[in-house]
């Protein structure tokens, strides 16, 4: 067994290339620190400056990542971190998600009387945690990044301090999330025990060198890591926490969780799965064992998510269950990734598209909600289309996209995943998938029924759409339709990104 690597000083200094790769991380970190300083500076009203600094930080880091996505892989900090297309692709998702969450929350926080600058700081910090998480090449770094992200999000979930439901959600999330982190960490420890390293390339090398002689400890560690991730992505049967948390959290935070958090968990999941030799190198007994676990979880996730969503009347809760269902499709993409020609590209693309459409839907929900996140039941949407034709149109695009109706991006995402699953010969799962997505059409369309086909009840106030929210919605619509009509570019990008893994 390879002993702990001695740290070599020359590996700790950064070359120019390495420094360039880290610019997005530094940017976000610097932006976060600046925001903290601004928010405690008593002499100014912190609202606008922090908002602007946070938004600009995200934008600048996004541009950086966009440049770096073309670049080559760089191993950083003694192999603890890596900067490759894959990590920068995910950075784009996280930063985009953070940016549009910030845009969507700006007026919301005013209306809810919780315009505290900490909010933006926490979102930025969470985004930094996500970025580090998918770039981590070491299970310890991964865990630290995961905690950085999770702790910020625990606080964000409970951001409405005086609300019981919100506190309950934060508490639940904190306890269950910590337990899951502990399981994951314990799994990492066991893997270290079995292979002598926490650095994932060494683990992979060890697994490939000793395919038959892996002891049960490795299997146990592997399973625990797997369960930890299944919890984080809220796959059935580890999904119980999610609806309550999603319902209790402030709307934009829920949007942030369904997009950024989920993408981070999935992005890291894929990296770790591959690192532990999933699909290449692992002994076939363990491989089929893992495959079975994922298979069952995937089938259950698609079914449970979609069927329970049918009965929900609260939109936030409905989208929470729909998010579980989408986790199922993502798992399908991951499950078939090793055996299809497209590899993990469909899964990765699904994450991006799901993030875009879900973020859009949540920005609209943020606009629709009134004090204390009330008025988000289906009947509150009655006749919205009469007063807000454009908003309703946008919502329809997002919902139809989630239901996978052409020509939207959601359709492109779904067919790619199904396509690769057919190549991987997972036909029963595909049939379950398409039938459950036919079920999902019902609850997505029901929202349209209320918006377009029912008469308005009472005289609800006219909503004001802020510039920022409008910008967020418009960008998401653009992505949803553009990728839906001309998906080729996105497929290419996803393929390239996955190659760098």
């Amino acid at each position, binding site marked *: 067994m390879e002993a702990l690597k001695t740290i070599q000083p020359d590996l700790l200094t950064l070359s120019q290339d390495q420094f360039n790769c880290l610019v997005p991380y530094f940017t976000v970190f610097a932006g976060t620190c600046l925001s903290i300083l601004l928010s405690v500076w008593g002499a100014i009203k912190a609202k606008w400056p922090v908002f602007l600094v946070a938004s600009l930080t995200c934008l600048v880091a996004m541009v950086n990542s966009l440049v770096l996505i073309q670049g080559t892989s760089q191993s950083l900090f003694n192999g603890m971190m890596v900067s490759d297309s894959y990590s920068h692709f995910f950075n784009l998702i996280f930063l985009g998600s953070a940016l549009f969450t910030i845009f969507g929350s700006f007026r919301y926080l005013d209306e809810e009387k919780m315009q505290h600058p900490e909010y933006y700081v926490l979102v930025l910090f969470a985004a930094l945690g996500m970025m580090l998480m998918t770039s981590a090449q070491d299970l310890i770094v991964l865990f630290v990044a995961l905690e950085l992200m999770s702790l910020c999000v625990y606080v964000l979930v409970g951001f409405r301090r005086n609300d019981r439901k919100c506190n309950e959600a934060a508490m639940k999330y904190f306890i269950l999330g910590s337990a899951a982190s502990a399981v994951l960490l314990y799994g990492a420890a066991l893997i270290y025990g079995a292979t002598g390293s926490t650095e994932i390339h060494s683990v992979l090398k060890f697994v490939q060198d000793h395919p038959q002689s892996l002891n049960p400890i490795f299997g146990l560690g592997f399973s625990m890591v797997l369960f930890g991730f299944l919890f984080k992505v809220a796959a059935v049967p580890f999904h119980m926490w999610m609806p309550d948390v999603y319902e209790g959290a402030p709307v934009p935070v829920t949007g942030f969780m369904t997009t950024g958090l989920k993408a981070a968990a999935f992005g890291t999941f894929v990296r770790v799965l591959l690192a532990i030799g999933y699909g290449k190198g692992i002994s076939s007994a363990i491989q089929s064992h893992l495959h079975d676990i994922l298979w069952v979880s995937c089938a259950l996730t698609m079914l449970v998510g979609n069927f329970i969503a049918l009965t929900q009347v609260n939109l936030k809760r409905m989208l929470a269950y729909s998010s579980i269902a989408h986790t199922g499709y993502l798992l399908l993409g991951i499950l078939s990734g090793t055996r299809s020609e497209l590899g993990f590209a469909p899964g990765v693309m699904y994450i991006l598209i799901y993030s875009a459409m879900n973020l859009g839907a949540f920005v609209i929900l943020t606009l629709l909600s009134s004090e204390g996140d009330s008025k988000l039941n289906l009947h509150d949407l009655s006749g919205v289309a009469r007063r807000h034709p454009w908003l309703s149109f946008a919502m329809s695009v997002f919902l139809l996209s989630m239901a996978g109706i052409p020509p939207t991006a959601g359709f492109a995402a779904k067919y790619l995943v199904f396509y690769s699953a057919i190549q991987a010969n997972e036909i029963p799962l595909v049939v379950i998938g398409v039938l459950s*997505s036919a079920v999902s059409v019902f609850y997505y369309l029901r929202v349209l029924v209320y918006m377009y086909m029912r008469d308005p009840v009472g005289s609800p106030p006219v909503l004001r759409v802020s510039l920022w929210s409008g910008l967020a919605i418009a960008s998401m619509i653009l992505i949803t339709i553009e990728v839906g009509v001309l998906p080729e570019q996105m497929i290419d990008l996803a393929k390239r990104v996955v190659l760098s893994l």
Partner: protein
Amino acid sequence: MSGFNTHLLSVLVFLPLAWAAVGLLLPAKEGDPRSPLKIWAFSGSLLTFALSVFLYLEFSTQGEEFQWLETLSWIPSLGISYSMGIDGISLWLVLLTTFLMPLAILASFNAIEHRQKEYYFLLLALETGMLGAFVSLDLFLFYVFWEAMLIPMYFLVGIWGGKERIYAAMKFFIYTMVGSLLMLVAIFYLAYQHKLQTGTYSTLILDLYKLHIQGEGYLGAQSLLFLAFALAFAIKVPLFPLHTWLPDAHVQAPTAGSVILAAVLLKMGGYGFLRIAFPLFPSAVSLYQLPFMVLGTIAVVYGALVATIQPDIKKLVAYSSVSHMGYVILGLFSLNQIGVTGSIYQMLNHGVSTGALFLLVGMIYERRHTREISAFGGITRVMPLFSVAFMIVTLSSVALPGTNGFIGEFLILLGSWGTNRVLTSIAALGVVLGAVYMLWMFQRVMFGPIQDPLNEKLKDLSLREVCVLMPLVIAIFVMGIVPNFFFQKMDPAIQRFLNRSSIGLASQPNSVPQTSYAQGNDHGSS
């Protein structure tokens, strides 16, 4: 000019959508009876019709199989291309669509008062979806149009429909969706098979025709694939026992919606069988020939029987669709030239006559706000023009010689006689039952004394309504008297279809002489 010719089909397909998008910018007041939108939408649909007439004139029977072929790479990494073309079968269905659309729009002028902007936008968007599905030569592109078509129809039924509109719209959407998602899986499976057999991905229909799909037997791969497609198409046709969405959707939809639904959307199913399910899976077709013919026969008789007892005119017409479309399935699965020709002809007939029936029902509904048969009686006295039109359409629907309905049903029965005599004899009952329910309804609505005083002051057809009905009445007679005019352009396409679909049917008795209809209209008007 060459650029125009090579992109003619794209222009045709997307013209209505583009027209509708411009229409969104026009000013419109809620409930304005003189809204410019109506004229705008109407002129857009007329222009589309003119374009398709141009296609008809330029279409050559001697030419290649698919004309105005247009193929662009769309999603190359999955072998998906944007490919359109038109042959003798799709040509007529395109013409049917573009012919009915202006009439449907014209018929909505008074009926739709609220949210006109959305209404005309959706109607034209629907036209794009339908035309796209008829001219697609790529399975994936076909699927995209097939699904995209659902959205406008869903809103048309759900917003402007009757009392139970939401239930009907939901049922329509989900029924169709379940079928089509399995079709999507089958499409991917085919593309993957193409990759395995030739090394490249392709979803082009013409490429897939060349595939040899392994797996014989009732549950072999080929049969399962066939069934996945057949389910989607059978739901759309709709074939008994998958027809239950149809009465709801038809009855609840606004008049134009019912017209388009009956006249064009149902044809999608038949067209799918013709273009995709049969030629791709010939040996599965020969296995499942009998079960489908049985279902078709049941649909013919069952639809007719249920139609007989309906108290609501629109529901009666809806069930008559089930019966008429049962003939289409019967004819297609008889797999000989006469039966298939009859089926295609019956699809066009059904579009014209049932479309006309729904328009007529809509007109009387606008006047009386009821469709109960018992609320009427003696209408001939107050609405003579309406009664004449109604009578002609009724006679066409009961397949009186001299009208279009006769040619279609006669050819289908003649064709299926060569395949299965027992089923044909039972299906022939449908003709009798058709006469029973249609004429009985006609008698109760039109003749006798006027019982309800509300009926005494009904106004006869306006000029606009005459303009709506006149083209349909003319079409009924033209199609009934000179069917050869239509057959000429279809023939080569039908020949090719049969060549592809009847592998494994070599031993099929084909006792009916192939030329019996080609001699001219010897069984036409007499």
